[in-house]
């Protein structure tokens, strides 16, 4: 990046009068914002760690030398067995990575061992729970053409269908009374191999199978307001009620006799590349060259006059040159412990103390709008759900503080991908924005709606209940914060969600002072590339 020998860790910049304006992501565009000197700080992510020099060798080594109580993969394979390989869906990684995708590398390595053992009965399942189905192109990108052509034409590679009455089974109940719903094919297999891309600390562990291969019957026990409000945060497994529930379910799955061989991988922070048009987004502003500055000015003004659809097309075509930083396989919990350490190695940045006002620039993409539109509910989910929860210890902003997000927040939805979101926004949010009330009054109706189920199973729609989960995802933040302000958003859409709209950051800071008083402390989380604040 800047010629340093080793990647630099993340750091916290105390803003003074000499500090340059900071680049904020703003959907399919950018803003340059000057933060008040003397009371502001900016948290910068760590530079990308070096990737493994021989990814295929590392994957093979992991399969042959598993962690925890597990035999090497070849010892678990035999000719007459039923093998199911499940893998993460389109929501990982973000943005989609350049070919070859890590899933392709891992799945090919697993299949090569299966071929060596002569395994004939192999199914591959995109473990998407209640996300939208992946298209052929997306599946090809994830698993590669070789695997797709070998398994998809005769129906052995497919999307998980959580609403298939024949294809799902309830394996039992946890001591907390939670139903454990699971894919029948996976449950009846002699071995399930799960292939993860652990982009953030939330991913992986028992959550992969207990959530990815489940459906509404199982998900409703942990994708709810109570769980989310008791996850502090859901990026920190030890303190996450979401994960505790998944871990309980994982135990039930294991006790039901399902044997799972878990493969987890981590990638570095090379989201925008070390060279190329977006590389400057990975650099600290004062390290920009003349060329970077000219490039940014050209890009910013070009994007300002470009039609929205053209901008979306350009940004959607970006594929991150992520490199594999670790791969581990074997028994789920032992594997996940190592993975979490590796994720933290890239993401954690130490931050001292909380702040009155937290600012963030939201990018064009979140897990649920790949090749789609970032609608207002997803804006809320990304800001109040994902970015707010990227902490360990305490939230970055104090209780009763203010969150300022920057995003155009268009009143716009993709009718194919997000049909239930439209009704949620028009009907539910017009009535109330209180998550508890929403959950009590509307969730069941949307979850069991025949039309949404039909679209989920046969089109490319997220499940009817999915927008509810997006709203619950931000419920911890909604409870914690005194006010939410969106800069540069569509005022009507922002108001519908119960937030306040501001045209500039200065206006937003003025408005925030009503809640947190004059001269508040401000912290900006400069994400992506991804960082996670370790708040002491």
């Amino acid at each position, binding site marked *: 990046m800047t010629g340093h020998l080793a990647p630099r860790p993340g750091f916290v910049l105390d803003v003074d009068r000499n500090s340059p304006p900071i680049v904020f992501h703003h959907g399919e565009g950018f803003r340059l914002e000057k933060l008040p000197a003397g009371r502001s700080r900016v948290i910068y992510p760590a530079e990308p760690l070096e990737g493994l020099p021989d990814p295929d060798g590392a994957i093979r080594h992991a399969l042959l030398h598993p962690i925890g109580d597990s035999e090497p993969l070849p010892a678990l394979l035999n000719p007459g067995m039923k093998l199911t390989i499940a893998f993460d869906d389109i929501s990982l990684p973000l943005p989609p990575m350049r*070919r070859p995708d890590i899933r392709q590398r891992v799945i090919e390595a697993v*299949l090569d061992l299966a*071929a060596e053992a*002569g395994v004939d009965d192999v199914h591959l399942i995109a473990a998407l729970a209640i996300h939208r189905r992946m298209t052929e192109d997306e599946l090809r990108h994830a698993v590669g*053409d*070789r695997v797709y052509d*070998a398994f998809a034409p005769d129906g052995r590679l497919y999307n998980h269908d959580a609403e298939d009455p024949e294809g799902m089974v309830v394996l039992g109940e946890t001591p907390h009374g939670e139903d454990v719903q699971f894919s029948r094919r996976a449950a009846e297999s002699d071995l399930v191999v799960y292939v993860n891309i652990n982009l953030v600390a939330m991913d992986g562990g028992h959550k992969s199978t207990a959530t990815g291969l489940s459906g509404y019957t199982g998900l409703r026990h942990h994708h709810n307001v109570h769980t989310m409000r008791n996850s502090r945060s859901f990026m920190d497994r030890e303190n996450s009620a979401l994960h505790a529930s998944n871990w309980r379910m994982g135990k039930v799955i294991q006790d039901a006799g399902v044997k799972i061989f878990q493969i987890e991988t981590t990638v570095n922070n090379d989201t925008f590349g070390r060279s190329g048009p977006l590389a400057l987004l990975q650099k600290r502003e004062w390290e920009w060259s003349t060329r970077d500055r000219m490039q940014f000015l050209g890009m910013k003004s070009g994007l300002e006059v470009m039609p929205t659809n053209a901008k979306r097309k350009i940004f959607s075509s970006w594929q991150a040159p992520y490199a594999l930083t670790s791969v581990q396989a074997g028994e789920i919990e032992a594997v996940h412990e190592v993975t979490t350490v590796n994720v933290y190695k890239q993401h954690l940045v130490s931050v001292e103390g909380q702040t009155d006002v937290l600012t963030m620039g939201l990018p064009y993409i979140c897990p649920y709008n790949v090749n789609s539109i970032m609608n207002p509910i997803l804006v809320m989910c990304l800001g109040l759900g994902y970015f707010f929860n990227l902490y360990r210890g305490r939230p970055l902003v104090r209780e009763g503080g203010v969150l300022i997000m920057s995003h155009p927040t268009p009143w716009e939805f993709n009718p194919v991908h997000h049909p239930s979101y439209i009704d949620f926004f028009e009907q539910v949010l017009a009535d109330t924005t209180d998550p508890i009330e929403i959950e009590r009054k509307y969730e069941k109706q949307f979850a069991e709606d025949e039309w949404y189920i039909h679209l989920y199973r*046969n*089109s490319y729609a997220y499940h009817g209940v999915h927008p509810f989960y997006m709203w619950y995802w931000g419920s911890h933040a909604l409870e914690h914060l005194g006010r939410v302000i969106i800069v540069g958003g569509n005022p009507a859409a922002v108001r519908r969600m119960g937030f306040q709209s501001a045209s500039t950051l200065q206006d937003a800071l003025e408005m925030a002072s009503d809640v947190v008083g004059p001269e508040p402390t401000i912290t900006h989380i400069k994400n992506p590339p991804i960082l996670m604040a370790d708040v002491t």
Partner: protein
Amino acid sequence: MSPVRRAATMARSLAGGLSFPWRPAPVPTGADPVPAVRGLGADYDTSWARRYPARIARAAIIESVMRPTMAVIASPARRGLDRLDDLDGPVVFVANHHSHADTPLLLTSIPEPWRHRVMVGAAADYFFGNRIASAISALTIGAVPIERTKVGRKSADMVRDLIGDGWSMLLYPEGGRSPDGWGQEFRGGAAFLAIKCGVPVVPIHVQGTGRILRKGRNLPRPSRTTVTFGDPLVPTDRENARAFARRLQAAVAALGDESTSDWYSARIRAHAGTSPGLTGPDVGAWRRAWALGNRDRGSRRRRRRWPAL
């Protein structure tokens, strides 16, 4: 003979290519080869073809002549390029050999950074028989002369020097084009070079070029082709050239299986040692031709399907 009939005969003769006495007669089997003219054959100096003017001319020929020509007559499907993603530095590409169309097809299929820094091992007695043919071969495809009729160090030393200078090599270990559509046993030269130079070998399987321009034909006929790149192979410490050549042949055969069936079935057969061989069944000529018809039907490419709704 009427003028019309004479013209028709001449046209047929031109269409079928020049034959003896318009071109030299091939050396019959059993006869001693004609001593090479000094400065030709394996002695031909191709260093000029690696200087920048020739490289620029060759790049222009590859991109502006070979690529569109191949797109029209070979409509190639290129698979497995992602297997080269982690590869760096010079390599030896080895492929099965059916036709003169193989080289232009491969030169337009091999990805950067190798495409414009690859030399092609070409039969010294065939491509370097006279000065004009030698110059054209060296310029257009980056050919370097390889002796195939006798054992000599000259070719091996030259290729080793080229690899040392960062050039990659494209070699056809079968030693010549297939006479009947089936492959031939791999010779040990490519494996020997890879071991000597310590470079990885990328196996490539070419399917379908025999239908375009098989040995003995002079006019191409458009047909579909598939070029499948395999995982790079590195000789092990205890592997000699003969054993490594066998492994290369097995790898190319497995790629051939992959291009006519699917990847996973091909891997199962490869691990079980039951991949269909490159060289075909050891039976009479007509039965070999018959078996080839079953294997190489010309239009095995799967149609792209929309996902079932």
